[in-house]
């Protein structure tokens, strides 16, 4: 066992931090408690992988993040079987020229997005639109925005090429923007 890891003090040092991290992303207290516990136990199994290159907290957070993403994916699994595949995505652009198709052209928002009174609604609608993305896009887009995770790390974890990563980020963004417009913003 590497001397750097100190599981006997993990709960004291990191439980609250990890719990807050999970709660920020999942909004389910009981589930988050379980995830924190699972994170500690999973980390114990993988003590040999801890090299002391990152801090213990960073290492534990990375394990927890996997678990959060995994949950996202499971939540999406039922959708995957239905309509949330790439094939069912609309074509937003003309295949020949790359020009916007008229029906999908961005229009100015009908509301002022800077209005603080609207922030809550905007967040709720975006959340809804996010949940309609294909599961892989959802995971990648969330990971990138969640912690500003490095692109290389996401590609490694999700087993995709960097070119593929940007294609997905782009498609997800075009899709989300169109969704907001469709929802009346």
């Amino acid at each position, binding site marked *: 066992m590497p001397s750097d890891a100190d599981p006997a003090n993990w709960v004291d040092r990191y439980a609250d931090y990890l719990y807050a991290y999970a709660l920020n992303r999942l909004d389910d207290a009981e589930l988050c408690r379980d995830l924190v516990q699972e994170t500690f*136990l999973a980390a114990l199994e993988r003590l040999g992988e801890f090299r002391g290159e990152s801090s213990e907290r960073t290492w534990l957070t990375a394990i927890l993040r996997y678990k959060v993403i995994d949950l996202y994916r499971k939540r999406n699994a039922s959708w995957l079987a239905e309509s949330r595949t790439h094939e069912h995505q609309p074509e937003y652009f003309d295949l020949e*020229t790359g020009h916007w198709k008229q029906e999908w052209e*961005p*229009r100015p928002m009908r509301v002022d*997005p800077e209005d603080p009174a609207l922030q809550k609604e*905007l*967040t709720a609608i*975006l959340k809804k639109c996010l949940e309609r993305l294909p599961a892989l896009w959802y995971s990648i887009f969330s990971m990138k925005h969640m912690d500003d995770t490095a*692109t290389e790390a996401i590609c490694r974890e999700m087993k995709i090429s960097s070119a593929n990563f*940007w294609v997905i980020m782009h498609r997800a963004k075009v899709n989300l923007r169109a969704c907001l417009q469709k929802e009346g913003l």
Partner: protein
Amino acid sequence: MRGIKKIIYDCHHATYLIEKGQHTPLSLKDRITLLIHLSACSVCRLFRRQSRLINQVMHGFFRASAGRGHSLDESIKREMQQKINERLLK
């Protein structure tokens, strides 16, 4: 570099560069391509603004409750540490 006309028409490529550029520095060639496109295309300029807005909301979304002090009950923490200790002894 591709023909100017092609660049000005290609909103698909321009929005791709907009998205990429919001996360990572673009190459000089890509920056010029995007500049040419945006100078001629108000729809993609609007896309860029709305794309930034989505990034902001996403950002706030994951940090919304960051300020709130979430903490676990002491009893739950003791239980957690106990489970860890049991595994350590195995």
